[in-house]
Protein backbone atom coordinates (compact mmCIF):
# COMPACT_ATOMS: atom_id res chain seq x y z
CA UNK A 1 0.00 0.00 0.00
CA UNK A 2 1.34 3.43 -0.94
CA UNK A 3 -0.17 6.84 -0.36
CA UNK A 4 -0.16 9.84 -2.69
CA UNK A 5 -1.19 13.34 -1.71
CA UNK A 6 -2.04 16.07 -4.18
CA UNK A 7 -2.54 19.66 -3.04
CA UNK A 8 -4.61 22.39 -4.63
CA UNK A 9 -5.68 25.86 -3.62
CA UNK A 10 -8.95 27.64 -4.04
CA UNK A 11 -10.46 30.84 -2.73
CA UNK A 12 -14.07 31.17 -1.74
CA UNK A 13 -16.37 33.12 0.50
CA UNK A 14 -18.96 31.92 2.97
CA UNK A 15 -20.90 32.82 6.08
CA UNK A 16 -22.29 30.72 8.88
CA UNK A 17 -25.98 30.87 9.59
CA UNK A 18 -28.57 28.38 10.76
CA UNK A 19 -32.14 29.44 9.88
CA UNK A 20 -33.43 27.39 12.83
CA UNK A 21 -31.51 29.60 15.28
CA UNK A 22 -32.73 32.99 16.47
CA UNK A 23 -30.65 35.99 15.31
CA UNK A 24 -29.11 36.17 18.80
CA UNK A 25 -28.26 32.50 18.77
CA UNK A 26 -26.67 32.78 15.30
CA UNK A 27 -24.57 35.69 16.46
CA UNK A 28 -23.58 33.93 19.65
CA UNK A 29 -22.66 30.61 18.00
CA UNK A 30 -21.03 31.90 14.82
CA UNK A 31 -19.71 35.30 15.93
CA UNK A 32 -18.16 37.35 13.14
CA UNK A 33 -18.67 34.47 10.69
CA UNK A 34 -22.42 35.18 10.84
CA UNK A 35 -22.07 38.38 8.77
CA UNK A 36 -24.56 37.74 5.89
CA UNK A 37 -22.34 39.53 3.40
CA UNK A 38 -19.83 36.74 3.79
CA UNK A 39 -16.06 36.72 4.06
CA UNK A 40 -13.37 34.73 2.27
CA UNK A 41 -10.48 32.35 2.71
CA UNK A 42 -7.67 30.92 0.65
CA UNK A 43 -8.30 27.23 1.16
CA UNK A 44 -5.68 24.54 0.67
CA UNK A 45 -7.02 21.13 -0.22
CA UNK A 46 -5.00 17.94 0.20
CA UNK A 47 -6.40 14.80 -1.40
CA UNK A 48 -4.70 11.56 -0.30
CA UNK A 49 -5.32 8.34 -2.22
CA UNK A 50 -4.00 4.86 -1.50
CA UNK A 51 -3.39 1.72 -3.49
CA UNK A 52 -0.75 -0.59 -4.85
CA UNK A 53 1.90 0.58 -7.33
CA UNK A 54 1.09 -0.62 -10.85
CA UNK A 55 4.14 -2.72 -11.81
CA UNK A 56 4.11 -1.53 -15.43
CA UNK A 57 3.70 2.22 -14.97
CA UNK A 58 5.17 2.58 -11.48
CA UNK A 59 2.17 4.76 -10.60
CA UNK A 60 -0.39 4.33 -7.83
CA UNK A 61 -2.77 6.62 -9.69
CA UNK A 62 -2.70 8.61 -12.91
CA UNK A 63 -1.79 12.00 -11.46
CA UNK A 64 -3.01 13.87 -14.51
CA UNK A 65 -6.39 12.21 -14.15
CA UNK A 66 -6.48 12.95 -10.41
CA UNK A 67 -5.69 16.61 -11.12
CA UNK A 68 -8.44 16.75 -13.73
CA UNK A 69 -10.98 15.15 -11.38
CA UNK A 70 -10.02 17.58 -8.58
CA UNK A 71 -10.38 20.48 -10.97
CA UNK A 72 -13.67 19.34 -12.43
CA UNK A 73 -15.36 18.20 -9.23
CA UNK A 74 -14.01 20.69 -6.71
CA UNK A 75 -12.13 23.70 -8.05
CA UNK A 76 -14.46 24.51 -10.95
CA UNK A 77 -17.38 24.34 -8.54
CA UNK A 78 -15.86 26.19 -5.58
CA UNK A 79 -13.01 28.45 -6.64
CA UNK A 80 -13.99 32.13 -6.54
CA UNK A 81 -17.53 31.24 -5.46
CA UNK A 82 -19.81 32.25 -2.62
CA UNK A 83 -20.26 28.76 -1.15
CA UNK A 84 -23.67 29.41 0.48
CA UNK A 85 -25.20 30.70 -2.73
CA UNK A 86 -23.40 28.91 -5.54
CA UNK A 87 -22.56 25.40 -4.34
CA UNK A 88 -25.76 23.28 -4.09
CA UNK A 89 -24.84 21.22 -1.02
CA UNK A 90 -24.46 24.43 0.98
CA UNK A 91 -27.87 25.84 0.13
CA UNK A 92 -29.13 23.97 3.21
CA UNK A 93 -25.92 23.02 4.99
CA UNK A 94 -23.54 25.40 6.76
CA UNK A 95 -20.27 25.67 4.79
CA UNK A 96 -17.97 25.10 7.74
CA UNK A 97 -14.57 23.60 7.01
CA UNK A 98 -15.89 20.32 8.45
CA UNK A 99 -18.78 20.23 5.98
CA UNK A 100 -16.50 21.35 3.17
CA UNK A 101 -14.18 18.36 3.80
CA UNK A 102 -17.19 15.98 3.84
CA UNK A 103 -18.61 17.50 0.68
CA UNK A 104 -15.28 17.23 -1.16
CA UNK A 105 -14.98 13.59 -0.07
CA UNK A 106 -18.45 12.89 -1.47
CA UNK A 107 -17.63 14.66 -4.72
CA UNK A 108 -14.40 12.66 -5.24
CA UNK A 109 -14.93 9.22 -3.68
CA UNK A 110 -16.96 7.73 -6.53
CA UNK A 111 -14.94 9.37 -9.29
CA UNK A 112 -11.57 7.71 -8.64
CA UNK A 113 -10.75 4.66 -10.71
CA UNK A 114 -7.61 2.78 -9.64
CA UNK A 115 -6.76 4.16 -6.25
CA UNK A 116 -8.97 4.53 -3.22
CA UNK A 117 -9.63 7.81 -1.44
CA UNK A 118 -7.89 7.83 1.96
CA UNK A 119 -8.17 11.32 3.37
CA UNK A 120 -9.44 14.80 2.59
CA UNK A 121 -7.65 17.59 4.42
CA UNK A 122 -8.92 21.14 4.06
CA UNK A 123 -6.99 24.08 5.46
CA UNK A 124 -9.17 27.12 6.00
CA UNK A 125 -6.13 29.11 7.13
CA UNK A 126 -2.59 27.88 7.75
CA UNK A 127 -3.54 27.45 11.43
CA UNK A 128 -6.73 25.48 10.99
CA UNK A 129 -7.49 22.31 9.09
CA UNK A 130 -10.00 19.47 9.07
CA UNK A 131 -9.35 15.81 8.15
CA UNK A 132 -12.08 13.49 6.91
CA UNK A 133 -11.59 9.76 6.26
CA UNK A 134 -15.10 8.91 5.05
CA UNK A 135 -17.79 7.27 7.12
CA UNK A 136 -16.18 5.11 9.80
Amino acid at each position, binding site marked *: *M*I*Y*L*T*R*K*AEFSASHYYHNPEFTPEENRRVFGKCNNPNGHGHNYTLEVTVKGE*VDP*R*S*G*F*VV*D*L*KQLKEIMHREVLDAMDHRFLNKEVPEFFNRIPTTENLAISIWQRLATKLERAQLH*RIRVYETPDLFV*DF*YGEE
Partner: protein
Amino acid sequence: MKAYLTRRYLFSASHRLHNDKMSKEENRNTYGKCNNPHGHGHNYAVEVTVSGAVDERTGMICNLVDLDSFVEREILTRYDVENLNMLPEFETNVPTTENLCIQIFEILQRGFHPAHLEGVRLEETMLNSFEYAGGGEILK
Protein backbone atom coordinates in the same frame (compact mmCIF):
# COMPACT_ATOMS: atom_id res chain seq x y z
CA MET B 1 7.12 6.11 26.61
CA LYS B 2 6.86 5.81 22.84
CA ALA B 3 7.39 8.87 20.69
CA TYR B 4 7.82 9.65 17.00
CA LEU B 5 10.55 11.67 15.37
CA THR B 6 10.50 13.03 11.82
CA ARG B 7 13.52 14.51 10.10
CA ARG B 8 13.42 16.23 6.71
CA TYR B 9 16.15 16.16 4.05
CA LEU B 10 16.45 17.72 0.60
CA PHE B 11 18.01 16.43 -2.59
CA SER B 12 17.77 17.17 -6.29
CA ALA B 13 17.74 14.59 -9.05
CA SER B 14 16.60 14.06 -12.59
CA HIS B 15 14.56 11.27 -14.08
CA ARG B 16 12.67 10.19 -17.14
CA LEU B 17 9.54 8.07 -16.86
CA HIS B 18 9.68 5.45 -19.56
CA ASN B 19 8.96 1.74 -19.71
CA ASP B 20 10.75 -0.22 -22.43
CA LYS B 21 7.92 -2.74 -22.42
CA MET B 22 5.43 -0.11 -23.59
CA SER B 23 5.08 1.25 -27.13
CA LYS B 24 6.06 4.85 -27.89
CA GLU B 25 2.42 5.90 -27.85
CA GLU B 26 1.68 4.09 -24.60
CA ASN B 27 4.69 5.71 -22.95
CA ARG B 28 3.54 9.12 -24.12
CA ASN B 29 -0.03 8.51 -23.00
CA THR B 30 1.01 7.14 -19.62
CA TYR B 31 3.77 9.57 -18.71
CA GLY B 32 3.00 12.71 -20.75
CA LYS B 33 5.67 15.37 -20.31
CA CYS B 34 7.60 13.10 -17.93
CA ASN B 35 8.43 10.87 -20.92
CA ASN B 36 10.66 13.57 -22.49
CA PRO B 37 13.77 11.57 -23.55
CA HIS B 38 16.12 14.18 -22.11
CA GLY B 39 14.64 13.84 -18.64
CA HIS B 40 13.81 16.59 -16.18
CA GLY B 41 14.52 17.26 -12.51
CA HIS B 42 12.95 17.89 -9.15
CA ASN B 43 13.93 19.19 -5.76
CA TYR B 44 12.80 16.30 -3.61
CA ALA B 45 12.14 16.55 0.11
CA VAL B 46 12.18 13.33 2.08
CA GLU B 47 10.78 12.96 5.59
CA VAL B 48 11.88 9.97 7.61
CA THR B 49 9.76 9.07 10.63
CA VAL B 50 11.14 6.79 13.32
CA SER B 51 9.67 5.77 16.65
CA GLY B 52 10.78 4.26 19.90
CA ALA B 53 10.86 4.65 23.62
CA VAL B 54 12.41 7.86 24.88
CA ASP B 55 15.67 6.93 26.56
CA GLU B 56 15.55 8.19 30.14
CA ARG B 57 19.20 9.15 30.20
CA THR B 58 19.42 11.03 26.90
CA GLY B 59 15.79 12.09 26.47
CA MET B 60 16.04 10.87 22.88
CA ILE B 61 14.40 8.19 20.70
CA CYS B 62 17.68 7.88 18.83
CA ASN B 63 20.61 10.16 18.27
CA LEU B 64 19.87 12.48 15.35
CA VAL B 65 23.55 12.43 14.45
CA ASP B 66 23.21 8.70 13.68
CA LEU B 67 20.12 9.23 11.54
CA ASP B 68 21.68 12.18 9.71
CA SER B 69 24.90 10.37 8.97
CA PHE B 70 23.05 7.27 7.75
CA VAL B 71 20.75 9.28 5.47
CA GLU B 72 23.67 11.35 4.19
CA ARG B 73 25.77 8.29 3.42
CA GLU B 74 23.17 5.87 2.10
CA ILE B 75 20.49 8.09 0.57
CA LEU B 76 21.63 11.64 -0.18
CA THR B 77 25.01 10.62 -1.57
CA ARG B 78 23.24 8.05 -3.69
CA TYR B 79 20.49 10.27 -5.13
CA ASP B 80 21.51 13.93 -4.82
CA VAL B 81 22.41 15.55 -8.13
CA GLU B 82 22.10 12.23 -9.94
CA ASN B 83 20.12 10.94 -12.87
CA LEU B 84 17.89 8.29 -11.28
CA ASN B 85 17.55 6.32 -14.51
CA MET B 86 21.29 5.55 -14.41
CA LEU B 87 21.05 3.73 -11.06
CA PRO B 88 20.78 -0.06 -10.91
CA GLU B 89 17.52 -0.03 -8.90
CA PHE B 90 15.84 1.83 -11.76
CA GLU B 91 17.28 -0.19 -14.59
CA THR B 92 14.02 -2.07 -15.04
CA ASN B 93 11.92 -0.26 -12.44
CA VAL B 94 10.53 3.12 -13.61
CA PRO B 95 11.83 5.90 -11.30
CA THR B 96 8.41 7.26 -10.38
CA THR B 97 8.26 8.91 -7.00
CA GLU B 98 6.21 5.95 -5.77
CA ASN B 99 9.12 3.62 -6.58
CA LEU B 100 11.74 6.04 -5.23
CA CYS B 101 9.81 6.32 -1.96
CA ILE B 102 9.75 2.51 -1.64
CA GLN B 103 13.51 2.32 -2.40
CA ILE B 104 14.35 4.89 0.29
CA PHE B 105 12.17 3.07 2.82
CA GLU B 106 13.94 -0.20 2.02
CA ILE B 107 17.43 1.32 2.33
CA LEU B 108 16.49 2.60 5.79
CA GLN B 109 14.86 -0.64 6.81
CA ARG B 110 17.89 -2.69 5.79
CA GLY B 111 20.51 -0.48 7.40
CA PHE B 112 19.19 1.83 10.09
CA HIS B 113 18.47 0.07 13.36
CA PRO B 114 18.80 2.54 16.29
CA ALA B 115 15.02 3.22 16.14
CA HIS B 116 11.96 1.64 14.55
CA LEU B 117 11.30 2.91 11.04
CA GLU B 118 7.69 4.09 10.80
CA GLY B 119 7.58 5.45 7.29
CA VAL B 120 8.96 7.63 4.56
CA ARG B 121 7.22 10.60 3.00
CA LEU B 122 8.66 11.93 -0.24
CA GLU B 123 7.69 15.24 -1.84
CA GLU B 124 8.30 15.50 -5.55
CA THR B 125 6.97 19.05 -5.86
CA MET B 126 5.14 21.44 -3.54
CA LEU B 127 1.93 19.81 -4.71
CA ASN B 128 2.74 16.07 -4.78
CA SER B 129 3.88 13.78 -2.03
CA PHE B 130 4.03 10.02 -1.47
CA GLU B 131 4.12 7.95 1.69
CA TYR B 132 5.20 4.37 2.25
CA ALA B 133 5.31 2.40 5.45
CA GLY B 134 6.43 -1.00 4.21
CA GLY B 135 3.11 -1.79 2.63
CA GLY B 136 1.01 -1.42 5.75
CA GLU B 137 -1.42 1.29 6.71
CA ILE B 138 0.10 4.64 7.69
CA LEU B 139 -0.71 6.51 10.83
CA LYS B 140 -3.58 8.89 10.33
